[in-house]
């Protein structure tokens, strides 16, 4: 059941992106940034947590989930460490994803050659 909810919620989030892509002049990079910012705001409001409880990876895999992780990490860290959590919590919570993207990006660039256009 969780797989099914992950499918349609994740698909729906991507569909919102597709509508923005086709019906506005926004570039993919801007849409990606909008999704992360939206996820961070919804995370701060506590709404995105409910979506994750319902849809699991359907909510965490889209980039709104990355934004949520930033805000969620900040709030969690404020609870345990106080005000410094405003600065440390976000990157702590997303460190794995960021480090993986940077490291695999580097390795990929070393191993693979650019495609000829």
């Amino acid at each position, binding site marked *: 059941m*969780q*797989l099914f909810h*992950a*499918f*349609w*919620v*994740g*698909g729906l989030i*991507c*569909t919102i*992106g*597709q*509508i923005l*892509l*086709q019906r506005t002049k926004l570039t993919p*990079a801007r*849409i*990606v*940034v909008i999704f*992360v*910012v939206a996820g*961070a*705001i919804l*995370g*701060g409001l506590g709404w995105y947590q409910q979506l994750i409880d319902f849809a*699991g*990876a*359907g909510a*965490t*895999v*889209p*980039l709104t*989930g*990355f*934004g949520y992780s*930033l*805000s969620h*990490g*900040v*709030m969690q860290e*404020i609870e345990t460490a106080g*005000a410094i*959590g*405003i600065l440390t919590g*976000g990157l702590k919570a997303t460190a*794995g*994803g*960021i480090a*993986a*993207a*940077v490291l*695999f*990006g*580097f390795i*990929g*660039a*070393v191993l*693979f*050659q*650019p495609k000829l256009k």
Partner: protein
Amino acid sequence: MNMTEQGKQDYKLRVSEVCPQTNLLSGCAKAFLVGGSICVLGQGLLNFYQNMGLDMQTASTWVSVTLIFFSAITTGLGWYDNLGKFAGAGSIIPITGFANGVVASAIEFKKEGFILGLGSKLFTIAGPVILYGLITSSLVGVIYYLVTMLGG
């Protein structure tokens, strides 16, 4: 030379004739199917990691790392770009799309050197995402801190 009102209208008509009309419905269906499938893959991995005894947060991080790894390989092989042509936002919005942006720009610019080519262009997509994500989450944090201070 000033374009007349009539000229502008003609131009718009010409543009709409020449540009391919992408069908919103089929674009959305493809984005839905591919985006949803990537999330199902993520959910399968999440279940797998949770069954290994990891808590939700750790398991989620492992899911992100695994998907980013797959994305890096398929980007290097050129497969992810083909998926992107078909799926549009269905391949951009998931975390695999983020990884694709990072890896693709790193590969593209390595010919400009390892420091200012690969090293800096790696962050072409990651930079804005991290910057604006951090700004937003820090603001959330400031508000959250003030509210809990005043309220608690």
